[in-house]
């Protein structure tokens, strides 16, 4: 499986949480899962999306780390925090645009998805990709994913002024070049304003 890349397809996720369970089975961090499955809009639909580390080319988590605890390897994989260095300051948790790192206060350690480094470095697929029944998480050579899927892999994201290029790709409908996210759209104030606007439209 060398030469394979990781692809996340939210439209395929059925919310079974097999990936969550499989991740927690791993010997290197037994009992702690490093993948989250979130509801996109819980009141209105049951759609879920799995979130693994996207392994950015310029990882924001590592750039803000004051202890130099997060490193990006030559293979492009951003490793979990180094135990002797991490001071559990939560800078990475606040900085990551994808919301991936989690600080375990009891261990004084940030732990995040390292794409099953023990497995992918010897040519095995990551745990989550092996168990995902709908292949919302898949670890395939790039040419295979293009053959098998209608969606296109996208690995450039726009967060406000920050452009983030990642190793992991998100499968998006054809013709969507980059996913642009403005955090202000998701704050309480903006949602509130949006709700008021839609109510006005309803009255009219």
């Amino acid at each position, binding site marked *: 499986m060398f030469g394979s890349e990781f692809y996340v397809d939210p439209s395929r996720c059925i919310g079974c949480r097999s990936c969550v369970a499989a991740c927690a089975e791993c010997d290197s961090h037994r009992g702690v899962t490093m993948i989250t499955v979130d509801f996109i809009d819980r009141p209105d639909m049951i759609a879920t999306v799995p979130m693994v580390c996207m392994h950015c080319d*310029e990882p924001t988590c590592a750039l803000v780390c004051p202890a130099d605890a997060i490193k990006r390897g030559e293979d492009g994989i951003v490793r979990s925090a180094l135990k002797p260095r991490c001071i559990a300051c939560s800078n990475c948790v606040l900085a990551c645009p994808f919301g991936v790192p989690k600080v375990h206060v009891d261990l004084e350690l940030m732990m995040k998805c390292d794409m099953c480094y023990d497995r992918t470095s010897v040519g095995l697929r990551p745990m989550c990709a092996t168990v995902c029944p709908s292949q919302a998480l898949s670890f395939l050579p790039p040419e295979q994913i293009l053959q098998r899927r209608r969606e296109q892999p996208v690995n450039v994201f726009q967060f406000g002024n920050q*452009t983030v290029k990642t190793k992991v790709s998100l499968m998006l409908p054809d013709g969507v070049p980059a996913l642009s996210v403005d955090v202000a759209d998701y704050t309480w104030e903006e949602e509130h304003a949006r709700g008021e606007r839609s109510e006005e439209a309803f009255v009219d």
Partner: protein
Amino acid sequence: MPEESAVKKRLWTEEFSVQAAEDKYVLRRQFAKFLVLTSFGMLAGNLWIWARSLMGRNKSALPTQEIAKASEIPVGGVKLFNYPGPNDNCILVRPAADRYVAYSQKCTHLSCAVYYSHQDGKLACPCHQGFFSVEDGRVLQGPPPRPLPQVALARKGEQLLATGWVEES
């Protein structure tokens, strides 16, 4: 993007790179080499300082310099002068009617200028509260490690002359 290039230029991003491949590790052998070379450097520097101090002593003929008229200083008064060079500040004190003493004005602790306090009969350094005896320049109190260097004085009629340093006994 301007933000990204600004991040790249910061010094710490080179020192503590995010990329594991750019990490610089110091080998034990490199560190040992550094220690040995630095030690040799320190030794050479100390030898040089020592040699210079020996040479300085050999040529020691210090100039004789007129510094003041005896009558121009009142009892308890001081006069500042430069001896032996134009940048070496010294202080001439008249603690009693028939007694004149002169010292280097540089405190032996951290080279602040000392001043004379006639009430206490001491030379005081205001920086760290160091006190020297006005009689012979010895340390009375405070952090200075050595006595103040004393200027040897001679009197030629009404003139006071500086003739060199008083050797420590």
